[in-house]
């Protein structure tokens, strides 16, 4: 006989109740979620372990790369640097001109956003949950709700914290929505995650709206979560269906959501202060 009296029913009932109450707390209490950051520390070493093979593969390919490839890459980077420098020069004159015009218009000065670099260390294994893990956490000043960008545009926002890591929900997650405007026309709308990688959708767009394929959607800054003026997505489909009152609109994120290994976190405190002083 393996069990003296069968499996323990009382232990089962107790554990189920404990599990469900933890889940209820996690869903409802913001305080609990903040405290959870310290529990997340338990998972951090394992998460580093999961990332290790990818990192090692990157290290090996860095070591055994050929001289010719290095020279070619170097050339490419140099030309890119020159192009970017030229753009920065233009940018400086443009921003000073902008500031002058804004003072003429008596408008508030725009503040430069402070950013922090972070590196991706893990990807959510659940196909329904588009989340990534980054190597900056509470101790680095990261806060829940902080937006994350890459060189292409907005990637998502921080939804979960641990002392040295945090979790970023990407814009393609089905829970995500970003306030944007169409750069060409200024039409304001929301970009919603569709739950499939590399596709976003726009709901409740009137059939008569002037939206074309290739239009750039730029974050509008409304709602106070995402900073203003960063590219979010590009329209890939605009279809008017005669039977429906709204058009079917699809877009593609401009950020390389499944490629970028480095991302920028925009500091939220400054932005909040800015909103308060407004």
């Amino acid at each position, binding site marked *: 006989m*393996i*069990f003296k009296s*069968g*499996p*323990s029913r009382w*232990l*089962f009932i107790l*554990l*189920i109740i*404990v*599990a*469900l*109450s*933890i*889940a*209820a*707390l*996690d*869903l409802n209490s913001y305080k609990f979620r903040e405290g*959870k950051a310290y*529990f*997340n520390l*338990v*998972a951090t070493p*394992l*998460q580093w*372990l*999961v990332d290790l*093979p*990818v990192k090692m593969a990157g290290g090996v390919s860095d070591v055994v790369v050929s001289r010719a490839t290095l020279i070619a890459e170097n050339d490419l980077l140099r030309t890119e640097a020159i192009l970017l420098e030229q753009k920065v020069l233009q940018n400086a004159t443009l921003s000073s001109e902008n500031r002058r015009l804004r003072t003429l218009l008596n408008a508030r000065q725009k503040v430069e956003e402070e950013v922090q670099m972070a590196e991706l260390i*893990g*990807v*959510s*294994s*659940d*196909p*329904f*949950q588009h*989340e990534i*893990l980054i190597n900056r956490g509470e101790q680095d000043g990261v806060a829940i709700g902080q937006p994350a960008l890459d060189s292409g545009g907005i990637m998502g926002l921080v*939804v*979960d914290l641990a002392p040295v890591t945090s*979790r970023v929900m990407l814009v393609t*997650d*089905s*829970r995500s929505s970003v306030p944007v405007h169409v750069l060409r026309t200024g039409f304001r709308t929301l970009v919603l995650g569709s*739950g499939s*990688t590399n596709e976003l959708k726009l709901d409740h767009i009137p059939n008569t709206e002037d939206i074309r394929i290739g239009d750039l959607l730029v974050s509008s800054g409304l709602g106070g979560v995402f900073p203003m003026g960063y590219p979010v997505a590009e329209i890939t489909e605009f279809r008017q269906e005669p039977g429906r009152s709204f058009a079917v609109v699809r877009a593609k994120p401009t950020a390389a959501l*499944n490629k970028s290994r480095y991302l920028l976190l925009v500091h939220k405190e400054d932005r909040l202060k800015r909103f308060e002083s407004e």
Partner: protein
Amino acid sequence: MSEQTSGGGFFVTLATFLIAITLSQFPLNSSLQWFRPDFLLLVLFFWLIWAPNRVGLLYAFFLGLLLDLMRGSVLGLGAFSLTLVAFITQLLHNRLRVFPILQQSFVLLLLVGLNQLIYYWMQGLVGNSADTLLFLVPALTSALLWPFVFLALRRLARYLDLN
């Protein structure tokens, strides 16, 4: 509890669980992700059958919590579904132990399917809607993988003389 349960048994079991969790989080191509077997449940199922007086509901509960922390889902949901599945396994234990491997595979198919169903049903609570049934595929791949996992872990357990 007259069998000698050496301290080594605990660490070996823990190591297999940690490897299983690592495998379950390992980054995969997004289309391959649908086929990823539920490694943690495979290993847990083995130990529940092989060492029932050492590995039980408490293991399932804490592994579930750890899994929730790893994958960032609502804390407690993984613990809930793993405890439930472990309890069903314990109820069926006397039969499972004498089942041929393929029949164990079939039971595992149902259990992984149940686990996935609970998980995605609960995901609906946080607003993640699933409009495809692809999330049941891991049940099939886990069942297909079970004979190999079973033989490998049994060899390990016999070699180390674990109970």
